[in-house]
């Protein structure tokens, strides 16, 4: 047995945390890290910023939202890593991209000023800037994850290409990807893009566990938690609180 098989590391990449972390996106990294530990795995978090060496092993990639300046700063580097990222996506590596990186994982983002920010085309979506911002608490429905709660804050309208699956559907016009077609987020293979933050993963443990299961199964052939009784109790406790927090979100105004 190798040492890896004993300690069962899982390599988590936090993508551009210095520039793309504006909406509490750290909460997503923390959630994956903590839950992996409680499941009996050893999380290894790699903060990848522009110019850094790409980690040797990658099991999960998490990316967040940024300001316009943040998007510009990382753009060059993102294109340098585009082939790597596309390769990992096609191998089924689970990824979660929120807001700004969701847009840059699409085909392009046409800003209000008439500039086109190209994306790396992993998610078959494109985004058009508009003056109006879509802001507020949001609940969406997903076949796989049930109700997903979060908070959206974006001015870009994102549209899905034919055949691209949304992460979920939203009830009200003026919310979600573009305010028009009642979709929110996108899902291509194991890559999820979404405008939902708040943070997303702590409040939606089903999505967290999807990312973790997919990563672990891919690396170790099966998902077999080895957490002890105390760790299992802790997870249950955390999830009970998450359920209560999610219920409150659903009752709050935009």
């Amino acid at each position: 047995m190798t040492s890896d098989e004993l300690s069962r590391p899982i390599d988590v990449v936090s993508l551009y945390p210095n520039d793309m972390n504006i909406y509490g996106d750290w909460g997503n990294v923390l959630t994956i890290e903590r839950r992996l530990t409680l499941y009996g795995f050893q999380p290894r978090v790699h903060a990848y910023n522009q110019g850094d060496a790409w980690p040797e092993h990658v099991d999960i990639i998490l990316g967040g939202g940024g300001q316009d300046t943040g998007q510009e700063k990382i753009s060059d580097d993102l294109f340098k890593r585009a082939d790597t990222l596309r390769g990992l996506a096609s191998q089924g590596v689970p990824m979660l991209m929120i807001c700004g990186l969701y847009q840059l994982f699409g085909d392009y983002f046409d800003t209000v000023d008439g500039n086109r920010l190209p994306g790396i085309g992993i998610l078959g979506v494109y985004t058009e800037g508009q003056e109006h911002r879509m802001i507020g608490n949001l609940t969406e429905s997903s076949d796989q994850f049930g109700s997903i709660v979060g908070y959206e804050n974006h001015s870009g309208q994102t549209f899905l290409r034919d055949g691209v699956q949304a992460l979920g559907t939203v009830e009200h016009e003026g919310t979600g990807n573009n305010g028009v077609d009642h979709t929110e987020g996108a899902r291509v293979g194991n890559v999820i893009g979404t405008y939902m933050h708040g943070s997303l993963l702590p409040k939606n443990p089903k999505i967290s566990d999807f990312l973790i299961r997919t990563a672990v199964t891919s690396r170790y052939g099966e998902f077999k938690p080895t957490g002890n009784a105390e760790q299992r109790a802790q997870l249950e406790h955390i999830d009970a609180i998450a359920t209560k927090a999610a219920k409150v979100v659903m009752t709050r105004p935009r």
Partner: protein
Amino acid sequence: MAHNDGIDGDDGQMGLQDNGTYRVPNRSSRTVDASMPPTSVNVSRGTGAVGAPLRSLVTVALGKAIRASLRLTRHGGSALPGKVVETFDPAFLARTLSSLPYGVVLVSGTNGKTTTTRMVASMLADLGLKVFTNPTGSNFTRGVVSALLTKVDMRGRLDADIAVLELDEAYAVRFVRQVRPRYALLLNVMRDQLDRFGEIDNTARLLGKVAQATDGTVVLNREDRRIRALASLVPQGSRVRYFGLSRELRSQFPSDDEMHAEDMAGVGPFGSLSVSSDATVLPDATREALGAVKADRAEQGADLCRKRQRGADVHADVVLTKSGPHHAGFTMDGTSFESDLRLDGLYNLYNAAAALATVRAVMDDAGMALRASMKQSASAVKRPEDCDADRVQNLDPRIMKALANVTPAFGRGETFDVGGVPVQLLLVKNPMGFRMSLASFPPQGCSTMIAINDDYADGRDMSWLWDVDFASLRRTGVEQVTGVRAWDMALRLEYDQVQVANVETDLPEALRGFLAAEPDKPKHVYCTYTAMLAIRAQLGKYADVPDAGVGR
């Protein structure tokens, strides 16, 4: 007040959408004459277009009448008089404030506005100036207009030497389109309620417009790179002064950018979680394996520290050098001062450095103006008591004395006596403010309550809680979590492995339980804005709580 005011998302010119009843003022017609020299003290009262005095009469009568009728119908805190006056007489604000001999001090930034405005106003008053300031929480232009209406006489004249006004970033821009401040104190730019302002760089741009419009002295935070950069926007003829931190204290005040970088350097929520020296958290093998990660992170942190050093090359007028419980040390122009203060907490003490720098700028101008006026034997200038030119040279000790008299602002470190036990209210609005509060008030020996609401004034988006490192509460745990978003807060604490004894969304019930549990222990209550108002009101049942003069 209307809480649905949104941003209009244009190039940073954030006007409010007031249901179409109010147009954004035409810039050229409302801007106060920019030719007013910054140090001039000989501004005649009641300047304005022909007919303005008459208009003032009508405006003031109208505003006061509305206010009086609102009082009768018990709408004490309403901004309605301000709204009506803004519509009826849009030049009222500029006309009234332009009559002040020492002009306007505008205080803005993400964190510390209220505390710092209070300090500046209180110190200037102590030094003999008659100060007009806007009451806590009314940091919108309309609030200023409403406050002015209560203070002007029937002819619309304001009996004051100087105005010290707190304005939030978006309203500060609207304000400077109407009134050019003589002094601007720009504190910091941090991620605040992003659902309101959009982005941090955008917020910096808003403050840039304030710097551009200031015709006397702009006081800037040397340790905040976005604020420091605003120096380049200050117009020719205006001066720039800085306040800063000593090298030793700088490490305790991470900037917004560094907040996350330092997480990665192993001192934040993830660093301390992953690389904890607490053997019960993770097995040895795990910690060893994570050591390499920690080294990478530390290097990133060091890189940022080096970047930060560059700011230290800029000379700061006032430097905070020492911070202890109710005690602080400052260097002002190379001379060291130490004093006991009624203020507490590292963070408030840095605000005190900002206030000192601003007060010194005002008093320097006041001294110069006085000397000039004495030469000309001009009697038009109202002489501030104790402010004769001979003593201006030796002002700093008196300014320090004035600082020692400042009390904490409403809900910002206010302490109440509940059955002989101190209960301290600590307002938290954003991640940096929360972090600084946690660092300023060690939890050992105290019990802690956290109250999180999500009304508009609190910020609807709860994401910010995930940017706060709560590891410092791990040892003591948290006795009580409450507020509308109590479960969000409890979840946040769970992920930082902080034990939570009770979660109760009903705030009065939670407060009752919190005060009853461990009745002999001093208490810290971290609360968002509306939670603070509610707790303050509830505390009246248990303690002597002065009326803060703001609505619920």
